[in-house]
């Protein structure tokens, strides 16, 4: 995806729409987000218009919701078979930013969604992403917020769980975060490491960035090139899957070592050469951040 102009960092003023708000997962996560302070103004489930979830009005269609509310971002909990239509609804309605949590969307559909977002000039985060959280401000995702706290480190990760794990260790060590952003397990991404690095570089509150990657694909190599040419802030990188055998899928659809560039070693080497600090454990990330003085 080209470097978009759509900012993805959120705060308490971000007006949010939840797609699939009446579902089991959608309603549960809506309650948690709302309790956290996220400014959720509307929900959509076709056929459930007129209902309310947690006091939030539900509409049949996204176009109805945008007619009644100012909406800056949407988060989708719509099941995979219907995810493409739902995403197109958001993008066509002119909502600039869509978080696609759904797992298992057919790859052809993902390609269509990402392409349509390029055409409309909107940004998609995901799919298969936990979304993002700006600790202490707002949450547009499913992160376990008790593990995170407000601070000066930006985290960008392919894996949701790995970002929770690293966030928890950082928080325990007294190091807070500006935003924790999950880009999803791939193999097709609406927003990449590189896009998020660019946001963190621009964000005045972010003093350092933690980049979490894994085997498969070339995103971390692209990130390395971006770090070399554009990042002035320190980046601490950790790539997991150093012992992953070639050809085996390691949990995420995109996490398959195919060719030299997909290995953890080649990514670590590229990031190091680009000037990033590299770590092999979350505790080592803490040590490096403390040495940098964040």
């Amino acid at each position, binding site marked *: 995806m080209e470097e978009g102009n759509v900012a993805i960092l959120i705060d308490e003023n971000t007006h949010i729409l939840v797609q699939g708000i009446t579902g089991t*997962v959608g309603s*549960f*996560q809506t309650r*948690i987000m709302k309790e956290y302070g996220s400014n959720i103004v509307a929900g959509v489930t076709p056929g459930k218009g007129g209902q309310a979830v947690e006091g939030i009005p539900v509409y049949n269609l996204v176009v109805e919701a945008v007619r009644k509310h100012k909406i800056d971002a949407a988060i989708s909990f719509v099941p995979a078979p219907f995810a493409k239509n739902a995403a197109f609804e958001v993008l066509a309605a002119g909502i600039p930013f869509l978080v696609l*949590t759904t797992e298992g969307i057919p790859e052809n559909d993902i390609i269509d969604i990402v392409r349509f977002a390029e055409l409309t000039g909107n940004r998609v985060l995901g799919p298969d992403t*936990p979304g993002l959280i700006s600790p202490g401000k707002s949450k547009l*995702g*499913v*992160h*376990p917020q008790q*593990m995170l706290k407000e601070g000066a480190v930006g985290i960008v990760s392919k894996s*949701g*769980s790995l970002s*929770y*794990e690293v966030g*928890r260790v950082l928080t325990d060590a007294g190091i807070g975060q500006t935003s924790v952003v999950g880009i999803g397990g791939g193999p097709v991404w609406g927003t990449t490491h590189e896009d998020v690095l660019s946001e963190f570089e621009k964000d005045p509150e972010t003093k350092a960035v933690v980049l979490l990657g894994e085997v498969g694909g070339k995103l971390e190599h692209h990130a390395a090139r971006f770090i070399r040419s554009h990042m002035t802030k320190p980046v601490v990188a950790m790539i997991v899957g150093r012992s992953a055998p070639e050809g085996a899928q390691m949990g995420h659809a995109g996490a398959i070592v195919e060719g030299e560039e997909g290995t953890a070693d080649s990514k670590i080497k590229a990031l190091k050469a680009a000037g990033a600090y590299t770590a092999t454990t979350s*505790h080592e990330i803490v040590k490096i951040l403390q040495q940098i003085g964040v």
Partner: protein
Amino acid sequence: MEIVLSNPNVKSLLISLIGGLTRMDQVAEGIDTYLKKNDCRVPVSVRMCGTKAKEGVRILSSHGIAAKADLFETAKLAVHYGGR
């Protein structure tokens, strides 16, 4: 669990769970259901934290499993159970 335990060299089992979208109470109920139906021949150590973890830990404690929040601590425990 069946696949992992089919390997006779496995002496200790570590389950690491960190819940975001996944609710830990639901996962704990799954582990509970399995352990009620099956004999687990090796000691089980669980790392559990995140969404609904408090409820999950309570469910696991009925099997004498004290889930810890820290992965490294739990990993050490699992290695200890494995006799190394």
